């Protein structure tokens, strides 16, 4: 039992990160059939926010507060300047956001250099958890992301804005006919998704490091989550993240990291064959 607890907590770490990154992607895809290839760069942006803030002598907590603002503003700017002109052309959005992703990655590389920045964990030491020692920072990470997912669920379920979002996901034309300002819903949802991804960036940076291309890995993984879980609802994202995150963590104990990721991809592709709408369709 005591050996099992670190495994479960490792799983939960990956699952919580995946949930935060994939949520924005899934909601945006469900809302507007829009696949954003620059989504991973929001994660990178969050991580570099932490690097810049700590280089200026600021604390981790300041970066954690600033990152959703940085990510959110950038997401809204991206939606207002590029994406809103392309809503009727899904493939064009992929190409345009991929171009933006390339430009951003190259800019990160020019500004911060190609090497990886290590960031110190703000919460040192480990906690005893049901008799097993576990790093305190990871427990903090799981807590923060569960808290944020809870807030998202409440907003989605019990607020007027959440009702608007769910209406648009169900039927865009009908929502518009009922007087919902879909453009406003789009831009707010886009900004919120970007902000969540940026917070995820701050949370993961101390576990590994910040580097220009880090977003790409999260982009691929969160696509798996969306494909497996289904688009446009929080439950789908949670189920998809749980499946992908647990599978990958468990496989990592048995086989090399690269092989486990390839296996996860294969499982995702097989699931698509039998459940094209994902585990939990919108």
């Amino acid at each position: 039992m005591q050996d099992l607890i670190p495994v479960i907590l490792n799983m939960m770490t990956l699952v919580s990160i995946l949930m935060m990154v994939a949520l924005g992607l899934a909601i945006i895809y469900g809302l507007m059939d829009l696949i954003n290839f620059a989504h991973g760069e929001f994660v990178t942006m969050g991580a570099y926010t932490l690097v810049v803030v700590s280089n200026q002598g600021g604390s981790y907590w300041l970066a954690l507060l600033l990152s959703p603002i940085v990510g959110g503003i950038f997401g809204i700017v991206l939606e207002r300047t590029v994406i809103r002109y392309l809503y009727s052309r899904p493939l064009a959005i992929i190409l345009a956001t991929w171009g933006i992703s390339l430009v951003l990655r190259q800019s990160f590389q020019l500004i911060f250099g190609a090497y990886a920045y290590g960031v110190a964990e703000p919460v040192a030491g480990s906690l005893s958890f049901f008799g097993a020692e576990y790093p305190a920072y990871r427990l903090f990470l799981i807590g923060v992301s569960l808290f944020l997912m809870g807030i998202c669920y409440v907003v989605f379920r019990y607020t007027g804005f959440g009702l608007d979002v769910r209406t648009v996901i169900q039927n865009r034309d009908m929502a518009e006919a009922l007087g919902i300002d879909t453009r406003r819903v789009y831009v707010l949802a886009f900004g919120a998704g970007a902000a969540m991804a940026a917070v995820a960036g701050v949370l993961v940076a101390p576990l590994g490091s910040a580097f220009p291309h880090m977003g790409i890995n999260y982009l691929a993984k969160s696509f798996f989550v969306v494909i497996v879980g289904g688009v446009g609802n929080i439950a789908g994202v949670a189920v998809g993240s749980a499946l992908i995150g647990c599978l990958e963590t468990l496989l990592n104990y048995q086989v090399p990291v690269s092989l486990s990721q390839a296996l996860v991809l294969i499982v995702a592709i097989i699931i698509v064959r039998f459940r094209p709408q994902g585990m939990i369709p919108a």
Partner: protein
Amino acid sequence: MLFKNTPLDRGEKIWLLTLAGFLLVLLVYPLWADTYTLSITRDTLIYGLLALSLDYLWGKGGLLSFGHAAFFGMGAYAMGITALNLNTPLASLIGLFAAVAVPGVASLVVGYFLLFAGVRGPYFVVVTLAIGIISQQAAISWVSVTGGDSGLLGIPHLAVTLFNLSYEFHEGMPLYFLVLAFSTAVLLGLWAACRGQKGNILAAIQDNELRAQTLGHHTSLHLLFVLVLSAMVAGLAGGLYAFSTGFVAPDLLGLMLSTEVFVWVAIGGRGTLLGPFIGAFVVIRLEQFISSINISLWPFIIGVFFVAMVFLFPDGILSVVRRINNFVARKTATHHQEDA
């Protein structure tokens, strides 16, 4: 036989004449080219072959792959691993066979699950992107087989052994002509495969898949065929690359190469089959020129190209030419009217 059923129309005649013209240039070109420029041209031809495979999939099949370099890299690694580890005179030939077979089987499996589940359009792009990312990571971290970041070095040139006679394709003209022969054969083969009924069915699927299905065509099976053939051509290009340059590295599977292949096809003209070769030639030259000024400039230019393409010429570069043509034609038409 092929031409008896479907006679050549005017466009096809022009296409064949253009191809003949390019071939003539490429055949006499080695007479005054030195070994180094010849090897550059040879590598560009190989990249052109890769671009052709994407054009067949995207232009003819309507499926855009964003990880097409994965199949190219799989072919290159299959070639390299076989040629370096098998200890028979036939190793390099078996390697070339593996270079075609491995991506073929991989695409068959992936294609069966995706295409038969109705995955098309943007969803297909996403999954192929993921395949590209994963294969590159696998190539980097599976060090014992792939050599990790440094890749595989010293892959021998292709050698053909028949009874006691053995011939090795050496650097310079032999390799160049071998690559040219493969490229021409595959180009003509794919062109022939897209003519007649087969081509019409593919065009119908691109136009309206549901309607093509209603007419009794097994559209998923047709698309699966296109995907597998395309992956095999990409793998062949990878195999040619591996024994021509002698080394294989994880970049060959990577996203940057996949992105550039897309640009070559988009610039050369999607669906033209010959265009991707021209696109590869032009863009690689441009890349070398720009990278000689500043090495970090190129990704910016590619990124801006993507955004510009979406807004300025959404139907591809060729549509701009067509638009100018139409404009000129309309101008001359009104002139004639005024004369009359």
